[in-house]
Structures are given as C-alpha cells and as structure tokens.
C-alpha cells in the first residue's frame, strides 16, 4: 500500500481539478511521440505521424491524449487502491496493445513537462515531487499485470 501525506493527497486533487484536460492531454502525448519516436509504433492507424508538425496537427493524437489523461481520473479518485484500479487496463495494455511498460514512464515524464509548461513556477519542486510520485504509482500499476 502506498502511503500518502496530506500534502500529496491535496496536491494531486488540486492538480487534476485545475488542469485543462483538452490542453495537457494532447500536449503530453504529442511530446511523447515527438521526443520518443519509437512510441509511434502503437499508433499505426492514427494516420500521419511522420514528423513533429504532423503529430502536433493530428486530431486522433489530440483526442487520444485527452482520453489517456482522463485515464488517470480513477487513480485520483482512488488513491489508496491504485494498483487494483488498473488491473484490467494493465492486462489490456499487455495482452491487446502489447505496449512496452517502459513507455508508460516516458509518457509520465512528458506529462510532468506538459504541466510545467502550463504552470511555470507554480509547479514548485514539492508539487513536482508529489505529482511524479503519483505517476510512478500509476506506471507501476499499469505494468503490474504483464506476464
């Protein structure tokens, strides 16, 4: 079981109540696909992904970015049972999508950067620490059902 301080719980709820999902989700996924091009392997049916400009203008990427960010909502609502909350999704990513779980970490890093670009100095070191801890638990949970 992960232990959360009051500050961490409040910070996570605060972040997710304030971020614009329609901006941060697409920004994070876009950045991931540009900075770590091998992640494009999972989106063969998304159309044009051959360069940064194509990715940044791709509507399917943007929509998927929003979907992925909303995928974190269950963890925000259920911080004491994150691993259990992601059992099914972990199986899905392993057995259906065949996603290398290291890629979850890459996307998590891009999420931190996406929020940093939105919030600037309001994304303090303590807030960054809480957010990255939260993401690392989600990343671990998404990898937990791989076999």
């Amino acid at each position, binding site marked *: 079981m992960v232990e959360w301080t009051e500050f961490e719980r409040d910070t996570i709820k605060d972040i997710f109540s304030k971020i614009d999902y329609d901006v941060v989700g697409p920004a994070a996924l876009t950045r991931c696909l540009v900075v770590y091009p091998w992640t494009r392997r999972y989106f063969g049916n998304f159309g044009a992904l051959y360069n*940064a400009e194509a990715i940044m203008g791709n509507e399917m990427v943007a929509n998927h970015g929003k979907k992925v960010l909303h995928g974190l909502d269950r963890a925000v609502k259920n911080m004491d049972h994150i691993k259990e909350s992601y059992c099914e999704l972990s199986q899905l990513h392993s057995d259906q999508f065949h996603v290398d779980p290291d890629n979850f970490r890459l996307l998590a890093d891009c999420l931190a950067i996406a929020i940093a*670009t939105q919030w600037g100095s309001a994304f303090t070191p303590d807030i960054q*620490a809480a957010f990255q801890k939260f993401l690392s638990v989600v990343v671990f949970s998404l990898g937990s059902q791989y076999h």
Partner: protein
Amino acid sequence: MSLTDKDKALIKGFFAKVSSKAVEIGHQTLARTIVVYPQTKVYFSHWKDLGPDSPNIRKHGYTVVKGVLDSVDLIDDLVGGLLELSELHAFRLRIDPANFKILNLNLVVVLGLMFPDDFTPQVHVSVDKYLALICLALCEKYR
C-alpha cells in the same frame, strides 16, 4: 542516436536564448533533483543545508548546468572534449551514472517551465539527444 545538423542548430539556437538565465536554471534543476529524488542527497552529505534555497545548491546547480550549456562548443566531439570531466566523475566523485538521467529529466522540466514557448517538442527532442550524449561522454572513463 547521433546529432544531425538540424539538432545542432536547434540546440545552439535554444541555448543561446536561455543561457542568460543559467543561474536560475541551474538552481531549479539541482533543487528539484534533490526534492523529487531524495536518494541523490547522498552525494551532498558534506553540506548541512540541502533545502531548495540553500546557497550551496544554487551555486552547484549553476556549475553543473553551465557545464551542460558550455559543452555546446564541444558538440562535434563530446567524448574527447569531456574527457577530463569524465575522469572527475569516474575517479573522484564516483557518481552512479543513473543520476545523470535523473538530473537530465529535472533540467528538461525546468526548461519547459521557464521557456514554455521556446521549449517546443522539436527543440525538446534535440536537447534530449544532446543530454543523452553528454551522459555517455561523462561515463567514458568509468570502466
């Protein structure tokens, strides 16, 4: 993953824009490395104050990030150009190379935070490649 001419141009252009803020970039990068990854404190046990506002953190953060920014002049031969620094990290400081990646992540967060319009995904990928190559160059003398 070697640097193309386009990578080098983007890196040089971006670093020229941000180098005047090197003190702040360095301070934030090292402060965040220590706060977000507390295991990195082991390398600074000789300092009493490891809080984000510590003068030591500020000064040392600048030293490290200045090294990253200045190495742009060595971009065509990072391994050769950073041999001495590699020896320092390998034989004297003996920093586990995993920490270079941790520092790089925090540097990239700070660059995104301070320069949201300039640190585009295109600039980010070139800078990320450059930082990975600096890691390799610093590791050259480790074993």
